[in-house]
């Protein structure tokens, strides 16, 4: 058996460790053999034990006191007369109930406000959805129209450019004649002549010559709404050079008389000569 000295006991806190049951079994046995014969350690152990019990009792008292305070109000109330109980109950109800009613009222009002706001939001959502739908429909219509427009444009572009060359009668050798520039015309070129308002012919006849040779003759022509005779040629029919168009009026009996001759000049480079249709 090893003896224990008080310095060791104090340094290692054996009193506290023992009474809390935290010493290892062998050291516990050594300490017990020591303190059974040691009044000082026995006293310290008694004090530690008593102090711990006192602390626990103190805490228990505090807890009990807190509980009694809670239950005491009800016990005191239970000792009152029935009228006093009802009076106190009513007072408590008013004290607690009025704020509760106020909060409930406020809460109801708040809930109504929330409901209105929610309804507004839902209405706005519906409007927004409606507008979105309309926008989508308009967009679809716009796309459809653009599609149709895209399909329609090629046919509208087709007419092309038809240059009309107005031929006038030449009175003398120095008077300039009309000029057709093949590089500036399209596929067709129209020759127009004014037959004059005084002559009343049933129809007209034209003959196109170049260097004395007849290239083209057309009878049965009628003036258009502008009182003009118009004959259309493919540009490829002409090559640069001097040409002459002779206009004759045909009376109802078939007698023809020359109205005039209309020289013109063709310049420029075209796609090449082709025969008339």
């Amino acid at each position: 058996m090893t003896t224990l000295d008080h310095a060791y006991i104090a340094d290692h806190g054996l009193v506290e460790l023992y009474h809390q049951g935290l010493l290892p079994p062998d050291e516990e046995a050594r300490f017990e053999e020591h303190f059974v014969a040691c009044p000082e350690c026995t006293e310290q152990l008694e004090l530690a034990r008593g102090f711990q019990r006192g602390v626990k009792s103190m805490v228990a008292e505090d807890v009990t006191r807190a509980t009694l305070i809670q239950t005491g109000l009800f016990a005191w109330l239970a000792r009152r007369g029935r009228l006093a109980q009802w009076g106190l109950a009513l007072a408590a109800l008013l004290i607690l109930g009025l704020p509760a009613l106020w909060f409930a009222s406020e809460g109801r009002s708040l809930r109504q406000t929330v409901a209105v706001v929610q309804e507004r939001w839902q209405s706005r959502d519906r409007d927004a959805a409606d507008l979105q739908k309309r926008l989508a429909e308009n967009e679809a219509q716009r796309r459809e129209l653009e599609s149709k427009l895209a399909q329609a444009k090629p046919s509208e572009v087709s007419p092309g450019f038809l240059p009309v060359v107005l031929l006038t009668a030449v009175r003398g050798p120095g008077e300039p004649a009309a000029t057709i520039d093949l590089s500036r015309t399209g596929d067709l070129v129209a020759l127009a002549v004014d037959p004059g308002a005084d002559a009343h012919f049933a129809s007209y006849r034209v003959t196109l010559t170049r260097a004395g040779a007849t290239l083209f003759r057309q009878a049965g022509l009628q003036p258009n709404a502008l009182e003009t005779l118009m004959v259309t040629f493919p540009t490829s029919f002409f090559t640069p050079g001097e040409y002459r168009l002779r206009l004759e009026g045909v009376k109802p009996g078939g007698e023809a008389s020359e109205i005039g001759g209309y020289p013109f000049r063709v310049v420029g480079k075209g796609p090449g000569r082709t025969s008339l249709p």
Partner: protein
Amino acid sequence: MARIQAGDRRAEERVIELYGRSVAVLLDRHTNGRPEAQDLFQDTFRLVLEKLRRGELREPAKLPGFLAQIARSLAIEHYRKATRRKTDTDSEAIGEAVAISASPLSALLESENAALVRRVIRELGNERDREILLRFYIAEEDKDRIAADHGLTSLQFNRVLHRARQRYKELFLERTGGAALMAGAIILILITLWRGRAGG
């Protein structure tokens, strides 16, 4: 030893006077303050004195160790038997603990004790020491952890407990001398009971 072997009852009473408090502390620790400590106290001294009468212990210096060993063995054996008997939870111990609390004398002593401790804690004037005491004695937290939380060494921590215990002792002696006398009377009653049983 010789007087006891010769049947000197005064010598036997002297043994109880010398070692009664410490054996009571030991048994209180092993029974965790339960009432069976009183029965174990009587059994311990009855058994030890019987052995001394028979001369089974020849060296007086070994008497304290012998007493401690007998008391510890009896407490351990008691709980071994109690564990074997136990078919339910610790309801018996709970009932006994309630019985202690219900005793007017113990309630009075506990109330006095609580007042003393309350005063000790109030007089500490140190929030740290107050917290240490509560954590150690109520929450029963680990001593090293409490010391570490407050940046104290083990020695400093023990000093805090020692100061509190010393002040508790002063107040105890100052205000409850009557209770101390009452505790002494309880020991005397226990001795009387033991003598009655031993004599019967």
